[in-house]
Every structure is written in C-alpha cells, then in structure tokens.
C-alpha cells in the first residue's frame, strides 16, 4: 500500500548510545535519551528557519488515527554545511522515516503535538542521513 504509514515503534536500549544533546531548544531534559523510537509518515510542512528547522509529519497511530508530529533539527546553517539540506529538502507529501529519542512522559506535549528528537532520517529518496551529530 503506497501510503501505508507504519505504527510507532518504541525501543529501549538503555545507555547504549552516546547522546550529543547539541540542541535543546525546549530544554535538554525534554528528551528521553535512553529510549529510541521511529516514526514514519507524510510531510505536512517544512519551515527552514532559525533556530531550528521544523518538520511536521502526519503519522498514523496504531488506532489508525493521523497525528501530527513536530520534529526539529540543528540550525539551518549547521544542517546546510553538514548534510547539504536547504529550504526545499522536504515538500508536503514526501514520505519520511525518523529515528530518534522520544519525549519523556513527564514533559507535556507542546501545542498538542508529539515530538521526537531526530538522530537518523530516511529521506524521501530513500537514503538514510545522520542528522545528530550533523557532521561538520
């Protein structure tokens, strides 16, 4: 099914990975860096902006309802130099998969949206890009 959206999978690998924590616009304590999760879905909107580019992704949950997730990246100039992104890297309708750290349960969800701190992104073209650290 072309537009099949995968359910959210949360996996816990306690203490297995280093955490860079370079950006923490909404507080470093926001993210559960011991936990890992994956979301797959359709790009709704992409803002190429300081301090953090914002990607909104529509993800179908396990009940079949579509939820919008908010994913923020390192600043535009860092992403540009590190992985060559620009304002047209994502377009509405693109399919993406994002692997990263989920929010801690104790932290309220901002603006009604769930969020994930991205570490790897499967791009619309299929290649996997490490976005944290973004490599320069």
């Amino acid at each position: 099914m072309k537009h099949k959206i995968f359910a959210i999978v949360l996996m816990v690998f306690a203490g297995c990975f280093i955490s860079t924590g370079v950006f923490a616009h909404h507080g470093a304590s926001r993210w559960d860096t011991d936990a890992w999760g994956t979301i797959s879905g359709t790009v709704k909107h992409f803002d190429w902006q300081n301090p953090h580019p914002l990607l909104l992704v529509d993800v179908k949950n396990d009940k079949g309802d579509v939820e919008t997730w908010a994913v923020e990246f390192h600043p535009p100039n860092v992403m540009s130099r590190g992985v060559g992104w620009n304002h047209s890297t994502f377009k509405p309708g693109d399919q993406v998969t994002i692997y990263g750290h989920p929010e801690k349960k104790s932290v309220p969800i901002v603006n009604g949206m769930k969020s994930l701190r991205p570490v790897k992104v499967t791009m619309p073209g299929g290649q996997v890009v490490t976005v944290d650290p973004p490599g320069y």
Partner: protein
Amino acid sequence: MKKLALGTVLGTAVVLALSLGTLPRLAPELRAARPQAAAATPDLTGIWSPPRTPKGFLPYNFSPEAPPPMQPWAAKRCELVGCGTGPLGRANDDNMDPYLTSCAPYGLPRLMNHVGPFEILQSKGRVLVLFETGNSVEQIWTDGRGHPEDLDPSWMGHSIGHWEGATLVVDIVGLTDKSWLDTAGHPHSDALHVVERIHRVDHDTLENTLTFEDPKTYTRTWSSTIVYKLRPDWSLKEDIACEDKILIDLKAKKEKVYPYQPYPMNFPTETIPLPDVANAK
C-alpha cells in the same frame, strides 16, 4: 648648448652627491623598517570555527574544567540556570537563555565560544571580525586609540587591539550585563573586561586565550583557551535569531503587513510556543 650640457653634468653630479650622502643614512632605517612592518601584521584572515569532537562541538563553556570563582549573587544565578551542567557544558535550563527566549544577540565574549564560524578581515588601523551568528561585527581598533570614556553598554562592546609579535591582543570593555558570558549560562556585569590573545598556532589553527576580569561577578580573574580551525571552503551565511517567532508574528499581522500580496506566502501552519519562562523555577 655647451652651457646646457655643463648644467646637466653639474646637476647630475649634485644629485649623485646628494644621493650618496643621504643613502647611507636612510638605508639602515629602511632595512630595519621592512622586517618590522612585516612582523607587525601577521595574517589571521580567514573563516574560523571550533573543531568538532566525536560527540559534537567544543564545550559551550569558557570554564569547562571548574566553575569560575563567583560572587554570591552570580553563584545563585548559576544555580538557577544550571551553568555548564547541561550537555556539552551548556546551561542545563536553556529556556533561561536570552538568545532563545528573547531573541537577544549573543554578544561578546559569548560569540567566541560558539559553533558558528567567524571571518577575520584585516585593514589599516582596524581588524574586523564578522560573526555568522546574528551577523554580528566586532571592530578591533588597532590605530592606537584607547577606549572612549563613559561608554554606553552594548552587546559587542568596544574593542581595541595591538600586535605583540605574532599575537593580536584585544581589549574589550563596554559590554551590557544583559548577555550571557557563554552558552554555559555564566553571568557577567557591565564591569566585564576581556583580554584576548589571538595567534595562529599553525596555518590551520587559531588559538585564543581569553582572560576575564569582572570584580562585580567573579572574585578573581580567570582564563580560558579556545582553538579554531581554518575553514577554507566556507563562506559566511545569513543567521537571524528567532526566525520562528518572526514568522509567527508576521503571520498574525499578515493582512496588515501584506495587504496586496499577489501570491500565497509560506507561513508556518503550526507553531510551537516556548515554555513559560516567567514561571520557570
């Protein structure tokens, strides 16, 4: 005709005699002046930024090893912010960061301990440092002037410099107390006096040893050394603080600001508000 020829010969002889007489006196000064002039203007030009470590970038902290010796009020504020206790030596609560919460400029000296690159340009009597972050400019006056009296506090302060051999020594005062000293969240007062000693360790490496003197905030002077790598292939990019907030604001005023806009504008569809800083504990 004969007179003219004689005159020419005499004139030439006089010029030669004068030259011979003056050259031996001028030449040693010229010979001495040239190497001195060359040593007085080492080349620091280029785009520089801190190297990245396997975990990311340098600690965002002018005092990564031990906390600087703080006055009681500064220690209390550091406790509130979590100075240097966040990832990579950042403040633990960066929702207290004036840059993130109020779109404030980084200012100096914080810009010197940041991942964003800067370009050094040298001209007669002045060294310019163009910081990508916030598109900020530091003018370091090297024409021998001093600091003006009764400076207005500002985010970039007032910089004067001189060369000690291959080292550029920069003296900065006039800094506003509204900025953070570094991304670790260390405070400073408007009495902050920063001395930077900047030199090129090798072609690709620039080293800056900063000394901080701020008796209102710290109980003694303290120093920090930071290195930067040459980025020969880079160019400076635009960097505007709070573009997210600007877009939200423009969207709210869209009808007022762009009444005759003929095409749809790319405004954000959703917004992520910052946490309530006023109520942050």
